[in-house]
Structures are given as structure tokens and as C-alpha cells.
């Protein structure tokens, strides 16, 4: 693959450097940007994110990037909160704002709710297994049962958009996709060889 233009959206959240390094480890050039023009012209777009949906959506709105992201037609990969932002709305509005729904980007018509972990400890933090639903190319070369790294307290339910599931108390979407938008609830950039392969598959789409 020669010199494609990979852009990480600068959402103003913390963990951008670890996502950046993960792409660089695969030998690809990557730009971090919040410029609508740079993002629109990318071959591949990565939407990272750590923090609350409310805070991140406010950053994206303040930077004037909502329509930019919504109109992307190239492959877009969301990591963790980046996946959640792709959904219609999220219940994760930060401390002291319970019961408030946060409108998200509406790219995948599903919602984000607090995990019903059936008495297990939250956040769901650590390595857990993927079970694939269908045969999405982002998981090429990986078999169900592979471990990836999760850190989250909110999740998307199982739906027609689920391409991988995981179970913690109850089953939830470990990854979702619709058209060119793909989101992983886990952190591929922190998921060792499996995560690296997922990013590589995305870059080769």
C-alpha cells in the first residue's frame, strides 16, 4: 500500500498519541487534524476518543466538524468513545447529568446505554473475547475467541449493525458497522497483535 492519506480526527480528547503511534507502528504516515478540509480529503479517517460523550460531542460541535464527519464516504474507524459517537444518541452525559441523552453523530442508528453488567464490576476493564457476527473484512484473519482490550461503562446493544459481540454480564456490541462507518468498542491500539491486525485490515480496505 503506497502513501495513502490517513487522518486522525483531533477531537480534543486525551488518548490521541496512542492511536497515532499504533498506526505509525504499521509504517503508515498519519496526520492528526481538526480541519474539515484535511479530514474530508483523507483516504481513511480514524475517530478516537476517551472521556464522556457529552464532552466529546461539544468539542466536535465547537470545532464545526459534525457535518464534515457525517458526510464522509471513505472508510471511517471509531475507537471506543469514537464508536459511541457514531451512534444516534448516548446516555453518557458525565457526572451529575443523569437521565440526559446526548445527541451523537447519527451514523449508525443505534443507541449507547449504561452497561447492565449483572452485578459485575464496572467499568468493564481488561481483556475480553470477541465473537464475530457475519464476516466483516475488518476482522480478516482473526477468529472468534480472540482477546482485545476494553475500558468502558456504556455500550451499544446487540443489533443488526453488530459485527462482533462480547459478553460482560450481558452480551453487547464489541464492534458495529454501517456502510463506510465502523466502530470498535475496544481499543485496537492497545490490543497487542490482534488490535494491530484490525488496524492493518482497516488501512487495507
Amino acid at each position, binding site marked *: 500500500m503506497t502513501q495513502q492519506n490517513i487522518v486522525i480526527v483531533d477531537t480534543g480528547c486525551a*488518548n490521541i*498519541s496512542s492511536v497515532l503511534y499504533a498506526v505509525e507502528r504499521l509504517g503508515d504516515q498519519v496526520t492528526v487534524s481538526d480541519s474539515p478540509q484535511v479530514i474530508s480529503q483523507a483516504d481513511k479517517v480514524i475517530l478516537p476518543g476517551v472521556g464522556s460523550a457529552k464532552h466529546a460531542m461539544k468539542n466536535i460541535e465547537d470545532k464545526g466538524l459534525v457535518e464534515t464527519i457525517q458526510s464522509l464516504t471513505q472508510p471511517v474507524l471509531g475507537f471506543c468513545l469514537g464508536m459511541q459517537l457514531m451512534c444516534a444518541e448516548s446516555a453518557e452525559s458525565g457526572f451529575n447529568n443523569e437521565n440526559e441523552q446526548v445527541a451523537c453523530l447519527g451514523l449508525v442508528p443505534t443507541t449507547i446505554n449504561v452497561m447492565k453488567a449483572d452485578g459485575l464490576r464496572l*467499568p468493564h476493564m481488561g*481483556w475480553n*473475547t470477541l465473537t464475530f457476527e457475519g464476516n466483516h473484512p475488518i476482522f480478516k484473519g482473526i477468529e472468534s475467541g480472540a*482477546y482485545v482490550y476494553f475500558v468502558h*461503562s456504556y455500550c451499544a446493544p446487540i443489533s443488526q449493525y453488530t459485527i462482533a459481540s462480547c459478553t460482560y454480564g450481558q452480551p453487547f456490541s464489541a464492534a458495529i458497522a454501517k456502510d463506510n462507518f465502523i466502530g470498535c468498542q475496544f*481499543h485496537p491500539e492497545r490490543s*497487542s497483535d490482534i488490535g494491530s491486525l484490525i488496524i492493518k485490515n482497516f488501512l487495507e480496505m
Partner: protein
Amino acid sequence: MLAKRIIPCLDVQNGKVVKGVKFRNHEIIGDIVPLAQRYAEEGADELVFYDITASSDQRVVDKSWVSKIAQVIDIPFCVAGGIKTAQDAQQILNMGADKISINSPALLDPDLISRLADQFGQQCIVVGIDSYFDKDTDQYQVYQFTGDEKRTQKTQWQTFDWIQEVQKRGAGEIVLNCMNQDGVRQGYDLEQLTQARAITSVPLIASGGAGTIEHFTQVFKQSDVDGALAASVFHKKVIEINTLKSTLIKQGVAIRPQGILC
């Protein structure tokens, strides 16, 4: 199923990995980055880097190595040592650390835990607790400034009270270091950890005392901790991480196997 975590801890002093016995007499083990890389490749689930001199020297952890580690390793890692403010935490998280861990600064200013959890999210705020069993009083006591033996001192806190306090204040994970066991490889303090587990609703990581594979089996099966941290047995290759993990899997502990398609 959520896997139990194997966590090598790298104590850092002046940019080198060191290890002492019972927190004393530190010897240099090697350079940080190659050792971190080796552990990630061998199947470590997470790494902790602990600047053991930071809090006691009134300075923040030397940070240049944090981004170097973030560049080369692809598993989560936590940085501890001298993080006293939200700015300190922000800088380390921006450099690519997944979590930050606070210990003595939390004892001096317990509200720091809440401020950090509010700003960065509970999941990346770890509280480290150095606990010493005092035979005279028959109590587990919290100690601070354990990186420097001249300044190490007992605090007003009993361990189980402090565990409950830090959770109320927003700790996302607790590392309980049992000082009586540290570095002597006689096994984790199962009694203390089991009691701690019963009152801990966030992930609990056992630290101090690992010497054999059986010690890891015991701490996962008997104390139900989420992760087990160890240093010298990994540095000195007394235990190989992949052998440890395959043995634990055979014994029925939920563990992420080493190797891509196991």
C-alpha cells in the same frame, strides 16, 4: 469472559528499571524501553511504571520515557510517581499512558482523587496503597513515601478504611501492595487481599510477594483479584510470562493466551 491480568511492574529510578527488597537496596535491572517491549511481546496484559523516587524528592516523574514506551508497546500501561495535580496527569496521559496511579499525593490530599476522576474519567485513575501489617497493633496500616526509606512513614489510615475512602472519592482501580511480602517471593498476602476484595467494587490488583506460578494461581482463585502485579520474578526470569499464562489456563483461570490465534 473477562481475563485476569498479569502485570509486570517496572520500578523506575533515574531513567533505569530498578528493584529493591522490601522497598530497600535498589539495584539496576536495565533500560526501560527494551524491557517494556520484551514484556509486551511475552504476553503481559498491562505494564505499570512506577517512579519510586518521585514523591519523596518533591519532583514529578521524569516523563521523556513515557512517550517512548507509548510508541513501542501495544498493550495498556500505567504511570505512577509524583502526580500531584491535574496538569501532571494530563501531561502523562497526553504522552500516551492509559492510566495514572497516585499514592502519597492522595494521602496528602484525598480530594485529588475526585478531581482527577472528574476530569479524566474514573477508569484511568488508579490508587496505589502501600500496606504494612503491624504485629504490635494487629492492624494493616497505610504507609507513605515508601520510595525513600528515610522518609517512609506510617499514616493515620488503616488499610481497609483507606480502601473504602478512595473508592468513595472516585478511584477506578486499586493496587494493594502488601509491604511485608514485597520482594521476598513468599507469596501474595492472601488473607489481606481476600479481605480487601470483599470491600472493593472496582478492579483490585494484588502486589507484593510473587515467587512461584502457584502464588498467582492462589491469588486469583482464593482472593479473586482482577490482576496480579509482580516485578523481580519477571525481571530475573524466575518465571516466564508465557509459561505462567499457559499454566494458569490449564488450572482453569481466565487468562488471555499468548499468541495471536490461540
